[in-house]
């Protein structure tokens, strides 16, 4: 009988040790979750940026064969039609001063999501549009997806760049202003300049957003 109880106790202890070990593992994983996700994210981002650098023409823009004679208005055989592969980065935002290098997707892409990526605002212009305005947004803070966490360190005159379609567009910040958080932001910029606008929440202020206006140099 005591032998049986001893054996039972040993089993119970081993279970508890197993449970403790499991909790330690889960705790470590949970504790370091943000770093793991960030690491994974950075690795994937780097991979995608590297892919984008290599094969913009071949993969982002693909030729689509046209089915013959569908309607008289259809393009003639041999003509090329293009579409944008939304699963690839459309461009890459770099801000050397805060060590930010992050791709962003086309505004119509399902990955153009504020919770996961730097987000391109629908209706904003691509960098090659003269006097256009590319608007990018991201979260601040220190959680996952807070890519604009350190924008507050930027000052007028600091540099940013956007790589798009194998071209690098360099910008210089010319204006920084704060607006109340109302769901809509008014853009104050020089309409005779090509600009990049970055929007994120103001550091230590839940009621306002900060807008950074950079002009093409």
């Amino acid at each position, binding site marked *: 009988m005591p032998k049986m109880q001893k054996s039972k106790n040993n089993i119970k*202890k081993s279970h*508890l*040790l197993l*449970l*403790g*070990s*499991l*909790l*330690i*593992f*889960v*705790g*470590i*994983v*949970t*504790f*370091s*979750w*943000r770093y793991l996700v960030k690491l994974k994210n950075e690795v994937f981002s780097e991979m995608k940026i590297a892919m984008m650098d290599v094969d913009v023409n071949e993969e982002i823009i693909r030729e689509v064969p046209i089915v013959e004679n569908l309607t008289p208005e259809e393009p003639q055989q041999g003509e090329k039609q293009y579409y944008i592969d939304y699963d690839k980065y459309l461009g890459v935002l770099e801000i050397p001063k805060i060590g930010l290098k992050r791709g962003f997707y086309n*505004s119509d892409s399902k990955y153009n999501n*504020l919770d996961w990526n730097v987000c391109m*605002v*629908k*209706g*904003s212009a691509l960098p090659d549009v003269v006097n256009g*305005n590319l*608007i990018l*947004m*991201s*979260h*601040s*803070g*220190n*959680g*996952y*997806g*807070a890519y*604009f966490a350190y924008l507050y360190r930027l000052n007028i005159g600091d540099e940013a760049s956007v790589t798009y379609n194998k071209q690098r567009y360099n910008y210089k910040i010319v204006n920084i202003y704060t*607006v*109340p*958080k*109302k*769901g*809509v*932001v*008014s*853009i104050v*910029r020089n*309409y005779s300049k090509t600009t990049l*606008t970055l*929007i*994120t*929440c103001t*550091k230590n202020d*839940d009621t306002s*957003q900060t807008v950074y206006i950079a002009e093409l140099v």
Partner: protein
Amino acid sequence: MEKIYMENNNHNRKKKIDGVSILAFFVAILAVVSLVAVGFNQITFATKTVQENQLPDNFDVKTETEVANKLLSNKSFPIMMHFAEISCEGDANGCQAGKKTFPIYCLERQKDTVDTKYELNADDSSITDVGLIYLMANLYPEVEMEPIEAIEGDNADHKVEMWISQALIWVYLKETGLDPTSALSETDKQNVFQSAFIKYGQNINEMNSDKVGYTNDESKYLVDYYKIKGTNMTAHQVYDKAMELHNVPYESAYGVSVVEDGDVTISQDEKYYFSKKLSVLENTSDKSIAELKSFSITLPEGIPDDTEIVDEQFHTIEDLSNLAPGTKFYIKVPVDSIEEAVDIKLDVVGNFDTLSARRFSAVNEGDFQQLTTLKNVTNGRPAEYDFELTPAPDTASKSSMAQTMYFIGLIVLLCGVGIVYANAKNAKVKE
């Protein structure tokens, strides 16, 4: 008796009161008249001559040597005046025997004159030199001129003003190179500005058949002696300003821009965004060249639904085609309708009353002087204003989520360590 006295007394008082009232009334009238008179004296404005008829595109031209002959025929700067002759009815406003004449100015001094029919120059009818337009807009007959000192007599024939106007136009054309073949010599130019003969009031009197009583003031030249009526600006100063305006491109001589004031705001119920307070600013080299009369606003296609222009009291402005200068307005945009970045580009057109300088040539004749005169026209000048809005979802700090994860991870980790430690310790003690 007492009653009679009282009645008399009342009667006298009544009379007295009436007298005081009348006196006060006259004093008040005098005060008002004085104030108005003082006010008028402080206002200076150029007196525009009344040109009821704009010159048509063709007309007969008559030359007149009277000015030249009167003006010191032996002193080197005679002027042959041109008059456009047009048909008129009645006998008012200078219409005589169905004809009416207007002074019109020569652009090419070295060429011959001719009495013939003139018409708009087919190749180059428009003069776009801002300085020349300004000069003509501020000389006779566009404005009346008068001597800087009060004079006796009548100045109705305007001979001096015509002489000054034509002389300054020729000097301007020579100095700016607009008339490259100008035969105007430096001496001629000196004659216009400094020649002794122009100083002498006696000579000026000779020009004026109506015997105006000028004094012999040798300190003043003719162009310094005449000023635009109602202002202190002499003909010489008009010329100087014209020279300053010579290099102003015609396109930028007048125009409008949209100016903003204040900040972008949101309504209290947070349903509408309002742009900064906007107004249209008139940018004109000189009011005599162009004056803003009204402006219009056009909202572009493809902007958020229910976007509208509202006045200072935030009431919708229905008619955007004819807004008075000085009108202030806002762009009102419903917040809910902003689903993507939108640039609301307002097209504003300022409608100006302005002057067009036209060039006329002799019809079917030889190489005679080209003539010019001004015509009132209405021109629109555009401006743009951008109001760019973008949706901006909450980009709040995500630190709270991350901290919660840290906290949970730490608790679980510590629990695991505690369980392992407790069981491992028990096992060791029992051994």
